């Protein structure tokens, strides 16, 4: 099976890997979900919901920020964090493409077996 459209990207490291890895953690997924309402939140607000320390939330937010999924902004004395959707959409497009490749491949299997 081939993923032709990614031929060129394969030479570089696909940034998808970084975004996928950032999402591959339950705490970080929970933070993304918490921010998915569209409203920004401070570390204090994010920690209030989570059964983990402020320090841990800060560390996870940093990973999400490095992957471009979350952005921070100073607002007075506090830092507010908001979701940045572009990398997430990129992942969706990638997974849809891989999924379509599987549709084709499985279609060939079905035709091969049923013929």
């Amino acid at each position, binding site marked *: *099976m*081939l*993923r*032709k459209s*990614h*031929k060129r*990207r*394969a*030479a570089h*490291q*696909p*940034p*998808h*890997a*970084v*975004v*996928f*890895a*950032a*999402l*591959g*953690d*339950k705490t*970080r*997924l929970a933070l993304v979900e918490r921010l998915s309402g569209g409203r920004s939140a401070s570390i204090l607000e994010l920690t209030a919901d989570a059964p983990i320390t402020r320090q841990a939330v800060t560390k996870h937010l940093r990973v999400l*920020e*490095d*992957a*471009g999924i979350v952005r921070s902004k100073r607002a007075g004395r506090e830092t507010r964090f908001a979701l*940045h959707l*572009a*990398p997430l959409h990129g*992942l969706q497009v990638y*997974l849809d493409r*891989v*999924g379509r490749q*599987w*549709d084709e*491949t*499985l*279609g*060939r*299997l*079905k*035709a*091969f*077996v*049923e013929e």
Partner: protein
Amino acid sequence: MAEIKIEKRIEIDAPVARVWRALTDYREFGEWFRVALEAPFVPGKTARGRILHPGYEHVVWEAVIQKMEPERLFSFSWHPYAVDPKTDYSKEAPTLVEFRLEKTAAGTLLTLVESGFENLPAHRRDEALRMNDGGWTQQVKNIERHVAEKP
């Protein structure tokens, strides 16, 4: 870890035993997967073959066979991006591909799951950590700027 995966289901009008053979006989697998395999599948061993897609004949397809539970589960791990002969994919974290078979009234239900997209190999993890101020975040900004300048 939270799992990022792709799941597909397809019903095939043939007995489970027939589908199992198409999946696990290396010659039959090669027919529909379009790869010229050299030897039978053996769990724990690497399966190798030339890709038969026009334009990709120079590329060698590789997968490590994981499980072969007769008429139930066939799985292998591979590198889903591995089409660039100049890149060494052996250090990258592979994804896991699982084919599960179930008997139905019409024949066989095949469920495919590809998982492990969130597994980042060690060197990429380092790379990701170096991206604090540059790298991917910067790239997103560049794209945004480009879009803003050329609406």
